Every structure is written in C-alpha cells, then in structure tokens.
C-alpha cells in the first residue's frame, strides 16, 4: 500500500492496445480471416482495376504525346458537337498553303507543317506495297520528332512546287529492299517515279498503327498525285505548353477571318486530346468506385456482424476489463482497434495480392498496360481503415456500455 501513488492514469499506449486487440484477432484465426476476406477481395479488385485503368490512361497519353505536347493540329471541317458542317453551306474555304503561311507569321509559332495525306501503292525493286503517303515540307521531322536514319529528308523548297524525291519509312524500306542500299534507287507511287533520298529512323507504333510503314514526299507532289486542292492537316509547334490555349485561339481567329468568318476547320490541341482520354478514364474510375463501394459495404457488414457476435461472446472478458480498472473509453478503443486491425489487415493483404496479380499479368501479357499508382494503395488502405471504424463503432460502443456487474455474471 502506497498512499502517494497517483490515482489518475496515463493513456493506454497504442502499442499495448495493438497487442491486446491483436491477441483477440489471433485467438480466432479462421473467423478473423473470413471477416477480413470481404474487405481484402474488395481492395484487391479495386487496386487491380485501377492499375489496369491507370496503365491504359498512361499508355494513351504516351501515345498522344510522343510527338510532343507543344503541337496543335488543324484539320478541315468542323467536327465539334453542335457544328453542322456544310449545312449552312455557302462557300466553305479550303485549308490552303496560304493558311499555313499566314499561321507561320503569328507570334510564338515555331514551325508550321502543311500536310497532304493519301494512300497509294508503292513499287520498287520488283515489289509493291500499299502504304500511307505523306506530302509535307522539310520541317516535318522536327515537328513530329522523327529522326532521319539515312540520307536526308525532303529538302527546303517552295511548298507549291513538287520534286520527285521520296523518303521511306524503315518498314517500307525493309519490305521493298530488305537489307540492300535503297538510297538513289527509284520507287513508283501510283505509277509516278520518285528517287529515294532518305530513310527514316524507326519510330514504332501509335495505337497499334505502324508509323514506319509510310513514305514521305514533297507537299505539292502529293497534292498532285492525289489530285487534292486542299491540305488534310496543318501542324503547328510553339515554344511553351502554357501558350496552347492562347495560340489555338489566335489561330482560330485568323483562320475564321480568312475563311469568310466561318469556322470550317477543327483545331486539336494535345491538352484537348488528353482531356478526352481523361473523360473516358473518369467513367472507368467511376465504375471502379462503384465496385469499391459495394465491396467495402459487404466487407463492412461482415466485420460488423463478426464484431457484434464477438462482443456478445466476450461479455465476461469485458466485465473483467472494467473490474480491473479499464474505462468505458478504453474498452471502446480496444474493440474499435480490433475492427480496424481486421479491415486494414484485410485491405493490406488485398493490396498485396493485387500487386502480385498485376506483376503476374504484366509477365503473362507483355503488352498489357498495368500501372499501380501508390496513391490508390494508400487510398484503399485509408478506406479499409475507415470501414473498420464505421463498422466497428456500434459493436465497440455496445462493449463499452455493458454494465460490468452483469458482464461478470455471464459465465
């Protein structure tokens, strides 16, 4: 007996509460496993689905931005919603080389590439192949970040005057000439003879389409070849991403003015493209969110049921805790912690399983984009913890409010 001992108390240490609640979970391994399973499966599904979704989003963005982000494309015709191309007719203006030249004079514009695109059969070395033909100017490699592997690209010249020179994409070159030297050789594009002056460096695929299976010729030659009187596209580069909106607007104003005050063209910025793919991803995220909500709810019901039964079974233990001096809050804390341990443990196991499955998927299907953003892991764990608090609250309060005498009697 020591009268000067303190009669108040220090807080129940977190680590001690953890080991006490942990021992209760370990005392019923199967039951704990099953009740944590619901949350675990939910978290696993969510992490895995968001990993695939995020991987896909990153893949799409990467595809769009492989030509750089500081690029604006202008195409003829209005495809935006609300626009009805041609209905209000009158004289729609063609997208012309003069338009491209006018854009080039705008401030902040770095390079402008007018393009004429068509599909044609290319023959050479006694072989033939149908490919995309890009008519353009000398700035194309710089604008699209293409490299020239051999020889040179279409030289700088008057865009209105064609010459019969061609640059081959590496796939086309291989298909026609295999390993042989093609420089200085001739190909026929729709029957017209072109001299090969260069071979591009391999660039790979965009959204599954082989960019290297193509041929590049001067703009005017292409327009003549395909009998076109307008450009298919104008691409504009500029110095800084921040300028995107302002520049797109000044291009729009300039072209509208040049086209008799009609907006008969479409301006596409990289930001807009990424935003569009972002919208698609939002739908994916929303569906994943719904799955997450449902599975967490099911998991929460499981935890609630288990904890409620557990409190009922352990009334005598709870009475004992109160008899040796535990406060209502300490009992509440212990049972809440038990629920949180179950859900967070289940969530962590689910997240780990998802990471493992993700790695397996990547190994099994090499092309499949799977990317696990750590944020989703933390969010999933946070949600699991929250679920534990929500589902454990009522049982824990029940435990805390049990009258100690009655609890001790029940044995």
């Amino acid at each position, binding site marked *: *007996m*020591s009268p000067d*001992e*303190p*009669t*108040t*108390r*220090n*807080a*129940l*240490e977190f680590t*001690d509460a953890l080991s*006490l609640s942990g*021992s*209760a979970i*370990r*005392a019923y391994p199967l039951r704990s496993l099953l009740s944590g399973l619901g949350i675990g499966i939910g978290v696993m599904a969510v992490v895995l689905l968001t990993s695939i979704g995020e991987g896909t989003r990153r893949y799409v963005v990467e595809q769009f931005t492989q030509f750089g982000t500081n690029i604006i494309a202008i195409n003829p015709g209005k495809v935006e919603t609300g626009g009805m191309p041609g209905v209000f007719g009158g004289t729609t203006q063609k997208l012309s080389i003069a338009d491209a030249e006018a854009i080039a004079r705008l401030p902040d514009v770095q390079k402008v590439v007018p393009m004429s695109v068509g599909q044609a059969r290319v023959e050479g070395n006694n072989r033939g192949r149908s490919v995309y033909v890009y008519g353009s100017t000398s700035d194309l490699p710089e604008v699209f970040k293409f490299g020239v592997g051999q020889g040179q690209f279409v030289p700088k010249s008057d865009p209105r005057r064609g010459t019969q020179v061609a640059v081959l994409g590496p796939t086309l070159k291989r298909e026609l000439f295999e390993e042989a030297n093609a420089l200085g050789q001739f190909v026929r594009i729709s029957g017209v003879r072109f001299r090969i002056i260069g071979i591009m460096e391999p660039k790979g695929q965009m959204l599954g389409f082989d960019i290297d299976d193509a041929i590049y010729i001067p703009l005017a030659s292409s327009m003549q070849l395909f009998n076109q009187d307008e450009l298919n596209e104008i691409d504009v580069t500029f110095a800084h991403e921040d300028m995107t909106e302002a520049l797109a607007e000044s291009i729009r104003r300039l072209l509208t003015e040049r086209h008799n005050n009609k907006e008969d063209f479409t301006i596409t910025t990289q930001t807009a493209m990424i935003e569009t793919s972002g919208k698609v991803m939002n739908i994916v995220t929303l569906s994943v969110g719904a799955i997450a909500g449902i599975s967490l709810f099911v998991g929460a019901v499981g935890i609630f049921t288990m904890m409620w039964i557990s409190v009922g079974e352990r009334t*005598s*233990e709870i*009475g*004992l*805790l*109160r*008899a*040796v*001096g*535990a*406060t*209502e*809050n*300490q009992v509440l804390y212990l049972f809440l912690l038990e629920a949180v341990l179950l859900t967070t443990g289940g969530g962590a196991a689910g997240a780990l399983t998802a990471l493992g499955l993700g790695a397996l998927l990547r190994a099994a299907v090499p092309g499949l984009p799977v990317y696990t953003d750590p944020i989703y892991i933390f969010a999933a764990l946070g949600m699991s913890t929250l679920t534990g608090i929500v589902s454990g609250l009522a049982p824990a309060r029940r435990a805390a409010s049990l*009258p*100690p*005498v009655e609890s*001790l009697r029940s*044995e």
Partner: protein
Amino acid sequence: MIRLENIWKTYEMGDQKLHALREINEEIRTGEHIALIGPSGSGKSTLLNIIGCLDQPSQGSYSFDDTEIAHRTPQELADIRLHELGFIFQAFHLVPRLTALENVTLPMLFAGIPKAERLERAKSVLASIGLEPWFDHRPAELSGGQKQRVAIARATVMNPRVLLADEPTGNLDSDSGAQVLELLNERNRQGITLITVTHDPNVARQAHRVLVLRDGSIVRHIEGTHLQSLSELFTGFDSMDSPSD
C-alpha cells in the same frame, strides 16, 4: 474508510420489486478482514459489487475515503477500481488467450505504466507467490489453484488498499483453497483491507468480523470468540433459501 448508510438495492421485475439489499448500515476500517456469509441469494455478491464500485445502490449513501461514491463520474469510479481496489472471483476471470504474465500485466496496461516497469512488477508479484515457472502458460494450462493465485497477483499488482474476493475458494479443492486463503490473509496482514464472500466456515473463521446476510439484510455481526461457533450457522444455510418480496 468504507461507510455504508441505509443502502438499498432494488430490482424491478415487471410490477414486482426485489430487494437484493435492504437498509445496510456498516462501517469497515482500514486493514480489517471482513467475511460476508449468508444463504444463496441473500445479497452477498450484490453488496460486494457495490463496495467494489462495479454497481450502484438504488438508495443510500456509500462513501469511500469520506467521498460519496454517488457523486463520482464513471471515469473516477474506474480510477478507484484501478488504483484502490482488487477483485478476485470464484470463476477466476482470467483472459484465456493471455499468458499468466500478461493477465497480471493487464491492469497496468490501463494505467499506462511503461512496459519495462510492467514486466518487472508482474514478474516479481508472480514470483513472490511461487508462480515463476508458469509465466508463459495460458489459463487452460494451469490448475484451479494456480489460476486463482494468478488472479490474486493481478488483483494486487497495482497495490490496492482493498481486496474484494467473491468466493475465492469456491472452485478449489481444500489444499489449493487453503493456499489461496493464506495468500489473501498475508495481504491483509500487510495492511490491505480484505472483504471475502464465502460459504466456507473455515474461511469465515479467519476474518476479524463476520457479517451474516439474509434476505438482503445484515442479520448478525459475529466477532472475537464467537467466531468459533460459526459452523452451526452454516449447517443451517443449506436448508434455507431466501426469496425476497
């Protein structure tokens, strides 16, 4: 230190009233050993639980250390249980999944005593009652006597001023019962107030005073030389039952 004035405990069951305790007036001094005896249902446990701040009287005043218990918050009552009182139950009430050492540590956990000190105190208390080899054993691996000794260690590890034992030997054979009693008496000799509910005349005989309850009332006080004549009292109990109105 313990003063009970006109204590009533009434349970209302439908329109029937059951008086588990009626008009209890009693004073218990520091260091006393009190035995509560009486037939089953006479209110012994009810009285002990009220003294132990686990239960509140329906009427009357109970003061512990000159402070009225009715005015204490639940938190303060928990503090009193933690620091001033130790409970020993017939059914031991050890937490089955915890080892002997962990069971003894339990109250200190709620007091927020640091781990090192906790272990040291629990070990020394257990060792002092010869349970050193059983530190890491769970209750299921202990005999009844060992369990009750662990429970005594748990009840005393916070150095309480009052020990409350509800039929501590009720589930034990006579040898382990005697051992447990000796431990309790030893604590009492060290100055701890001891209140024991018992059916066993040999247990009651070791008390300073015996309070006999019947139908919720203290019907007799026995002390000194009169303690020798207890046995006949107990023989009477078996035929007695005490329903209250």
